[in-house]
């Protein structure tokens, strides 16, 4: 029997004590950023209170403790995503976006030239689009888009043709707009058959669908701390040790060098090569704590819980607002996470969110950094509600009540 209790997670998450416009907080924006539990917040405070020091170059006790805490987080994350080569494969960045820039500007610059293809998809976040455009400007690499079907899935009907000439398939595990969970293992197998490597945008999937890089057989993964109950200011870049070792440096500075002379420098080896400057030490402590917290909840239970909430919400939204409120995403919870993008007829997403705020309901209006996807469906914006481990059916109740008000106000 599962010990998982969303009520308990909520009780452990301080922000739920907030009262917004005389309503308790109905936080439905975990896809943008999750709310950290007390354990994560306190781990960082304790770090700053007791053992803050710069890492790596110290000999004294608190510097050793800080280094152990930082490197310990690396080991925790390696375990959490089942990195085959362990901690030496984990690079800490500032966010998933930097991880993609590292991928494109280190590995990509060295490996992707004119005549090569990067295959992404129409449902990618800008973090997995813009760095490739920037690389294209420099090397002339072709950026190709997998299409999205009318029922909000990747169009894999011509996958083999699409993979022709592809050196890298870079694909999201879970869409932050549609909720669609992509068949990453299947895609990785197909890409590998074509000799391509596979990068995974795990920003959404890491905390809402799980991430096992070994089982998925991907070659790169990128995600952020703040979407997995961790802090801002930290992201993760993972790749296999052999690939990491062959990647040229990215940002230059202290910590990433083996030697510097007035006539040149030699880079360090291992993850350090990509961690220039003082790293996000407290953030790593927070991220490690968040990963352990998710492990203690059991990610399977989190996923099951969020799936149940999603199924319930999809049914009730269809029932209440037949024809007036459209869900931009798969209609069932089959290969789908708890991200529910809404298009309310006659009410712009911005206005939906504004009205919902009066009820203490936090949803995010906009393009969700996925403009090509929005264009694909002829939308400028959706109002997106998304669940986390602390979400409850009661949140959906309030969401529906507030949506009713919005629909009424705009007539």
């Amino acid at each position, binding site marked *: 029997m599962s010990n998982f209790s969303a009520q308990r997670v909520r009780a452990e998450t301080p922000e739920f004590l907030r009262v917004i416009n005389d309503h308790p907080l109905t936080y439905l924006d975990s896809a943008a950023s999750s709310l950290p539990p007390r354990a994560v917040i306190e781990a960082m405070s304790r770090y700053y209170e007791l053992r803050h020091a710069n890492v790596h170059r110290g000999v004294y006790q608190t510097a050793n403790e800080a280094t152990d805490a930082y490197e310990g987080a690396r080991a925790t994350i390696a375990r959490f995503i089942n990195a085959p080569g362990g901690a030496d494969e984990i690079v800490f960045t500032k966010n998933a976006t930097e991880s993609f820039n590292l991928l494109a500007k280190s590995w990509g610059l060295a490996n992707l030239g004119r005549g090569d293809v990067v295959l992404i998809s129409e449902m990618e976040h800008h973090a997995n689009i813009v760095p490739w455009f920037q690389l294209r400007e420099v090397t002339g690499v072709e950026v190709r888009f997998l299409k999205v079907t009318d029922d909000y899935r990747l169009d894999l009907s011509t996958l083999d043709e699409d993979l022709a000439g592809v050196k890298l398939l870079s694909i999201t595990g879970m869409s932050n707009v549609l909720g669609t969970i992509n068949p990453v293992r299947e895609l990785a197998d197909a890409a590998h058959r074509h000799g391509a490597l596979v990068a995974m945008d795990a920003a959404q999937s890491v905390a809402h669908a799980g991430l096992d890089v070994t089982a998925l057989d991907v070659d790169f993964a990128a995600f952020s701390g703040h979407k997995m109950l961790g802090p801002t200011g930290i992201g993760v870049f993972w790749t296999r040790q052999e690939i990491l070792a062959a990647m040229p440096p990215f940002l230059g500075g202290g910590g990433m060098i083996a030697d510097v002379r007035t006539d040149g420098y030699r880079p360090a080896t291992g993850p350090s090569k990509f961690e220039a400057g003082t790293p996000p030490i407290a953030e790593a402590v927070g991220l490690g704590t968040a990963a352990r917290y998710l492990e203690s909840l059991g990610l399977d239970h989190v996923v099951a819980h969020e799936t149940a909430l999603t199924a319930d919400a999809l049914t009730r939204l269809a029932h209440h607002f037949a024809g007036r409120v459209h869900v931009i995403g798969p209609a069932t919870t089959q290969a789908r996470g708890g991200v529910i993008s809404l298009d309310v007829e006659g009410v712009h997403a911005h206005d939906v969110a504004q009205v919902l705020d009066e009820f203490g309901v936090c949803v995010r209006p*906009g393009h969700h950094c996925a403009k090509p996807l929005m264009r694909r469906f002829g939308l400028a914006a959706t109002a997106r509600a998304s669940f986390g481990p602390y979400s409850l059916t009661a949140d959906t109740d309030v969401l529906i009540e507030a949506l009713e008000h919005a629909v009424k106000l705009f007539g």
Partner: protein
Amino acid sequence: MSNLDDLYREIILDHYRSPRNRGQLATPPAHRVEGFNPLCGDEITIDLLVDDGVLVDLKLSGQGCSISQASSSLMSVAVKGKSRDDVRHAIASFKEMMLRHESALSDDESKNQVARLRELGEIAALQGVVKFPVRIKCATLAWNTLAQGLDELAL
């Protein structure tokens, strides 16, 4: 819901539901200018027909929230057929309204403000927006885009 009533006044909902001056003009002779609000994805395209220093006609297209749509619609009514100076003046008055929280005004400024609001006419309905700072960008998008268009036309 009194906050919301301040924001979504009837006249705003009316312009949102039935926006004025929608459409496009032939370019040339009209000049096309585009504006984006990267934060919320609002887009606006304004076609400007200028003759002898007068904004003879303008048409709007694009998409956005009620505030940005109503603001652009109200703007189009206010500036159509106006001289360069009148259009520039309307832009300046509107942006000033968006910058100022009433509470922060001195008595003298308040009086000026009232006078200006009267001048702005229906547009003053957008005054409630200043209580919702994130929506100010929605309200100003059309006006900034219009100003940019005038700049491009060296008007």
